[in-house]
């Protein structure tokens, strides 16, 4: 059964079609990637799903329930966590407090939220830095913090917007391992936007390719990287994976 269904979603900005008639569905418990060149509309789709934008047309169903009229905090409460491509840490707060803010969505009492946040911080490898201000973190650590904060809201679906960008290959592999682990242990469904093909190939079971706001291909990673349309518009002829 599919957890998220995007049906014929379109979204324009002042006449510019960012997303046009995009449809896809994510099976519960799956890991999926959305790839495509810059400006293809990937982040716009994310923002439509996350409730930042209302779609001009189409609908978004989450667990069978229409969510495209909801506001961002309601989408999160419904069970969709997200990260931001340009990271948005709460700079003045400690690493732990950043994650506590997310954890407070499900556990209303502060000590319980702190306990849960500490667990997640350990899982993401930020344990040693939990009392540092978020502003002191390096970019890879900020990306981890984004993920930790979103995970703390205990989502059923996690939207990851380029969390691998800027990571070294070994750091990227660690992150891949974390997502695999969470996916296996908790059955968390994941949708990632990613340019780092290394991560896409290692993680995703299903890949959708977006170009000029339209879904031009979908399939397994191996299928997609052989698709002529994808090679032409995005990956180029000599793709190495």
């Amino acid at each position, binding site marked *: 059964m599919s957890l998220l269904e995007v049906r014929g979603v379109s979204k324009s900005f002042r006449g510019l079609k960012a997303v046009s008639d995009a449809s896809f569905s994510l099976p519960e418990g799956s890991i999926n990637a959305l790839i495509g060149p810059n400006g293809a509309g990937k982040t716009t789709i994310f923002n439509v799903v*996350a409730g*930042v934008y209302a779609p001009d047309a189409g609908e978004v169903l989450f667990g069978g329930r229409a969510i495209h009229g909801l*506001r*961002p*905090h309601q989408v*999160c*409460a419904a069970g969709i*966590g*997200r990260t*931001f491509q340009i990271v*948005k*840490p*709460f*700079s*003045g*707060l400690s690493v732990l*407090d950043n994650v*506590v*803010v*997310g954890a*407070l*969505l499900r556990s*209303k*009492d*502060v000590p319980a939220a702190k306990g849960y946040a500490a667990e997640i911080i350990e899982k993401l490898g930020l344990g040693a830095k939990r009392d540092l201000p978020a502003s002191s973190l390096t970019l890879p650590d900020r990306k981890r913090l984004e993920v930790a*904060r*979103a995970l*703390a*809201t205990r989502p059923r679906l996690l939207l990851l917007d380029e969390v691998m960008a800027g990571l070294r290959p070994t750091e990227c592999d660690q992150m891949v391992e974390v997502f695999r682990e969470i996916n296996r242990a908790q059955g968390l469904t994941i949708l990632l936007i990613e340019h780092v093909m290394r991560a896409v190939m290692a993680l995703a079971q299903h890949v959708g390719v977006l170009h000029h706001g339209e879904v031009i291909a979908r399939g397994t990673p191996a299928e997609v990287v052989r698709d002529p349309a994808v090679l032409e518009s995005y990956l180029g002829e000599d793709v190495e994976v």
Partner: protein
Amino acid sequence: MNRRAWVLLSGLGALLVALPAFADSYVLSVATLILYLAFTGQAWNVMMGFAGQLSLGHALYVGVGAYVAGGLFFHYGLGPWAGLWIAMLACVAIGAVIGFLAFRFGISGVYFALLTIAFAEFTRIGFDHLRWTGGPGGMFLKVAQRDQIDLAHFRGPPEMYYYAILAICAGALALCAALLRSRAGYYWRAIREDEEAARALGIDTFRWKMAAVMISAAMTSVAGVFYAFYYNNLFPEQVFHISKSIEIILGPIIGGVGTLFGPVVGAALLTLLGDGLTELLAAFDWEVPGVKQVFYGLVLLVVVIFVPNGLWPPLARKLGLRR
């Protein structure tokens, strides 16, 4: 808070409780003013320091609180304890209207600050034309006596007012400490740091910003009621004036926005130095109009340049209260 902090805080508390025993009436009036500004600064800090919503019109809540409680007493003889609740309700309602207008229509940052100034200013002008409040001629509360402590009517010697504002200050400090540690404190700070990220974590930012404004307005109204019964005269040009709003925010800015003790430290420093300067000049028989304002400006400049986070954070480290 560590043990050292508790010891220092109890020491300070004991000193303040004992102060009237050895202070003369001038010192006591300065101390009362410091505590009054520490409290209003604390109330403002809930909105700006915790939730990141800049109000430059907090005199509005002081004035409405003062006029509602004062007016009810003046016209109907209603005591301050009953008037307090009505004043508080009025201020919360006004805060809710301002908050709703701003947050519902996405007015934020500088534009929100302008909106708070606008409300304070047109309330000032409106009160100048209200007959019920005496208009520009002011409202004068009758003072039957100053010798006996009459808590029911909040009448008595300066010591009573001093202890009252001390208790209010202590209560505000405890309330703010509890708020900061609660879910609200985390949510407010998240909104202050990055509202979009806060929303993505399931925070209904509209609701929590409204809560911050309403709590801040309610606290400030208490200061207004105190003001009315302490000074016994109210003029729109004084209580609602923008200089009063600025006076409220100077303490926390100099002491440290968003910190618990910043408003207290800032209010103490500014008042002591400001009054000290005035006294010093008076001793030399110099009378320089506006010297206090110039001095405030200088202090503000120095703080903004050298300790932009306020005096309290480095001071707390010096005292060994923080790493």
